[in-house]
């Protein structure tokens, strides 16, 4: 259940008589060893040192969000913001476990000397208050320590169960203000959880937040589930299930727990994709062994066949404006990337860089297409929508099926280990430098990153 987050206009704070007595804990910034950073290029914001202490509270009271009170919750909020910014290779944050805890009154009036003395260039402070209605109010402030200036602030009211979303919104606020990029932390991922030996692998539909929290298995694993895709409003997941023995696309409604066939057919249907407005689903269907791409209204209706080449046409990903579809076809003799208009006209090949090219995914920004490049090994690459400027983001034995962060700056994919076939979800930024494995309870494949929550 998603609940809305309301932006607060202004947070009226009493400008207290500034006791400036912080509860100083471990005064260390040991891993940074005295920060002195020179801003030298466009990506220098990534080297900014940011202090993220625990969020303060006006009154420690129990909430439904945790077993302890709002003081403990404030530490957790700081940790979530810290981990968001740290784990994605962005910035060089220091978190609440290594910092003094600011008092509630200091959230709007930072103790500048404390933070400049720690060589922090940026400071993220926040607070959490429990409301009488059980909801939480969370404020988030970004300060430039050197300028002693507030750069941006925002506040949200959330259901207690959604407290992590407030922290993600705060991390998004900081990231957007400092990088100039669109936010992406407050988003979710659908994927396939994998357990068991390679020849009897159990594959279950599962979901989690972008940082791996709030993990939930959706299907039991009795039938193989593959290739999920969140609807743009997160209300549904389209995926392939071998329920009843044959591959069919189902649309699972997260609210009701019910699922329906995307189209009634005697033929296998697979590779579901939502249009950006959620009204249309692309799918692939094999008829007498020949696979083509079709589209159908998400609410049901008459399918429309978009390709009719004798080769395999499969997959597909809409451009952000919904006018074009990038897809995969072996009509030339092996897998290559093609673009067509959303009605199936104007099909043309765009990949000419050698090897095979598969699983194209159009960036939400529209400026790149991520795909799987197969030259012996499987690697994740990106190219311009005209097929130029191809470059690899990963170099491993088997990396496939990229999916974009909602801001188009990070790509997730899954990696398969040689021999064991164990799978794991990884992400990498567009520099190819910041690569990391996502924490998942079991093996993981087919990540599908949804949009930023409203």
């Amino acid at each position, binding site marked *: 259940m998603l609940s809305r987050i309301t932006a607060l206009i202004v947070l009226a704070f009493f400008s207290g008589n500034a006791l400036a007595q912080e509860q100083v804990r471990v005064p260390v910034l040991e891993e940074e060893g005295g920060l002195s950073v020179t801003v030298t290029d466009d990506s220098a914001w990534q080297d900014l040192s940011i202090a993220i202490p625990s969020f303060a509270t006006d009154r420690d009271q129990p909430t439904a969000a945790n077993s302890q009170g709002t003081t403990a919750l404030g530490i957790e909020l700081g940790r979530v913001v810290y981990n968001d910014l740290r784990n994605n290779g962005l910035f060089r944050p220091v978190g609440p476990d290594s910092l003094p805890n600011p008092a509630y009154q200091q959230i709007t009036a930072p103790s500048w000397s404390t933070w400049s003395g720690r060589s922090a260039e940026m400071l993220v402070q926040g607070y959490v208050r429990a409301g009488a209605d059980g909801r939480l109010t969370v404020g988030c402030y970004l300060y430039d320590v050197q300028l002693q200036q507030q750069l941006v602030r925002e506040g949200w009211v959330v259901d207690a169960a959604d407290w992590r979303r407030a922290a993600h919104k705060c991390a998004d606020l900081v990231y957007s203000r400092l990088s100039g990029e669109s936010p992406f932390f407050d988003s979710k991922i659908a994927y396939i959880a994998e357990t068991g030996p390679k*020849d009897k692998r159990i594959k279950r539909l599962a979901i989690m937040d972008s940082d791996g929290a709030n993990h939930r298995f959706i299907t039991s694993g009795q039938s193989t589930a593959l290739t999920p895709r969140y609807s743009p409003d997160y209300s549904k997941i389209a995926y392939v299930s071998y329920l009843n023995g044959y*591959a069919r696309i189902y649309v699972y409604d997260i609210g009701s727990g019910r699922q329906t066939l995307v189209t009634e057919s005697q033929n296998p249907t*697979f590779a579901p994709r939502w249009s950006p407005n959620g009204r249309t689903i692309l799918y692939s269907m*094999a008829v007498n*062994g020949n696979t083509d791409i079709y589209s159908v209204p998400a609410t049901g209706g008459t399918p429309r066949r978009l390709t009719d080449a004798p080769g395999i046409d499969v997959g597909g990903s809409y451009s952000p404006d919904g006018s074009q579809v990038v897809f995969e076809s072996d009509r030339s003799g092996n897998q290559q990337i093609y673009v067509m208009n959303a009605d199936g006209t104007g099909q043309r090949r765009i990949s000419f860089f050698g090897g095979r090219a598969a699983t194209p995914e159009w960036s939400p920004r529209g400026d790149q297409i991520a795909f799987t490049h197969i030259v012996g090994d499987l690697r994740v690459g990106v190219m311009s929508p005209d097929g130029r400027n191809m470059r690899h983001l990963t170099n491993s034995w088997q990396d496939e099926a990229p999916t974009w962060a909602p801001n188009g700056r990070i790509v997730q994919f899954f990696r398969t280990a040689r021999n064991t076939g164990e799978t794991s979800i990884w992400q990498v930024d567009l520099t190819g430098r910041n690569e990391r494995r996502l924490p998942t309870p079991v093996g993981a494949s087919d990540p599908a990153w949804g949009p930023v929550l409203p």
Partner: protein
Amino acid sequence: MKKIALALAVTSVLALGACKKQAPADLPPPPQATGPSTPAPAPSTPQGLVPGTQAHFAQQMQGRDTIYFDTDKFNVDAEDQAALSQQAAYLRQYPNIRATVEGHCDERGTREYNIALGERRANAAKNYLVSLGIPAERLTTVSYGKERPAALGSNAEAWARNRRAVTIVLN
């Protein structure tokens, strides 16, 4: 006894048959010795298997319930045709049974493409069975792509064993 003679004839054709495709070293298993000196096995239930069941079919096929494909290919070559002919003979012998052909791929491709490729392979096998007179209504296909490997390694030999179409009798 005519059926036995037919089975023997098929076997000998296979033994002489084309080996142009790079077959996996350990599969399919060699045909059991059915030389003239040994008495021919009874046509059914040598180990109490019920004729027309999957277990009986698999036992009778001696590995020829499966055909193998080259990388990214789905054509049925002479060796595959011999195996499919043997499958068709069985299906003719038990006209009331239905079968499904499972298409599989090796792990060296992307997931969705491999589902499509497995469909091609399963249909190639099915179409050949139909060309031998097996009614299409008795045959279904399913592709598992690379999701259900038979050989677990990540090497050329395992991949060759996994690029396959397996006929399964439905009870």
